[in-house]
């Protein structure tokens, strides 16, 4: 009966996954297992397992965690600075002529984490179409790939960005 109970309770858990899905600090080959500070640090699994689950990156959907209020990270250290961060709710469609689904860039989620000058104008110009963005640059860790591949969800999630289906080509519609 105990086994069944465990199964059921897992099935009913609204969010979350097993802490074993993350590598503990003592085994991650980055931390020194003999380091005297290690026992004072938190394992990623212990900090992340209750957040909305995902299969790549930190195994967490950060945008959803923020949206649901599961986390509420502080936006600034000084009141003066907090006036500089503001959310912009504007989507930009990109890669209009590519062969993959069209890319939707949502300003909203990005401005919930970042300030405008993190991107403008050093990484991206403030006018649509002024910056030539390519998958080649992104895969090199530039442009979108600066964060997506290091901190934000990785480049294996094609459909997160290529999310707007193109209308079917004419020849197919006539069939």
């Amino acid at each position, binding site marked *: 009966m105990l086994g069944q109970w465990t199964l059921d309770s897992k099935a009913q858990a609204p969010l979350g996954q097993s802490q074993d899905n993350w590598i503990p600090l003592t085994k*991650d080959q980055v931390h020194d297992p003999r*380091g005297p500070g290690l026992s004072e640090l938190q394992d990623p699994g212990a900090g992340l397992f209750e957040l909305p689950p995902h299969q790549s990156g930190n195994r967490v959907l950060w945008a959803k965690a923020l949206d649901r209020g599961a986390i509420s990270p502080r*936006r600034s250290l*000084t009141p003066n600075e907090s006036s500089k961060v503001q959310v912009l709710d504007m989507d930009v469609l990109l890669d209009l002529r590519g062969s993959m689904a069209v890319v939707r860039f949502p300003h909203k989620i990005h401005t919930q984490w970042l300030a405008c000058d993190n991107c403008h104008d050093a990484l991206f110009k403030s006018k649509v179409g002024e910056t030539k963005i390519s998958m080649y640059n992104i895969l090199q860790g530039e442009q979108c790939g600066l964060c997506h591949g*290091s901190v934000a969800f990785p480049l294996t999630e094609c459909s997160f960005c290529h999310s707007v289906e193109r209308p079917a080509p004419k020849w197919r519609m006539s069939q």
Partner: protein
Amino acid sequence: MKRWLIWVVLGMSLVSLSAQGEYGDVVLNRYADKAGVRPVVFPHWFHRLRFTCNVCHAEGGFKMRAGSNDITMGEIVDGKFCGMCHNGEIAWSAEFCHRCHSGRPGLAGGFYGSQDPSGPSGGGDFYQRRH
């Protein structure tokens, strides 16, 4: 979709299996090894639970480029870089050396636990991201 792109992306997912460290971990080791202390491991996941990116990358002085920040203990104690929070007020102070200096000696600086954007050949046991 271009064929080569599929292979690159597939390769990235394979490399990510062998990559170690939590996604977003950065090793800082310009000076640490040479000075005889363990390299510093900075966990993005732990900090982004508590602060948004702009706190460090706009309000604070952290340039968004692995290896581009020249950080010394003097500056940290002066309240710059990690010291803007690790000052005994917002977070515990710089006296807890081992919590930051927790890396394996000899580790190269850069990102660990990341997907390798340069594909199957660019990775290794660890993928380190440097520009």
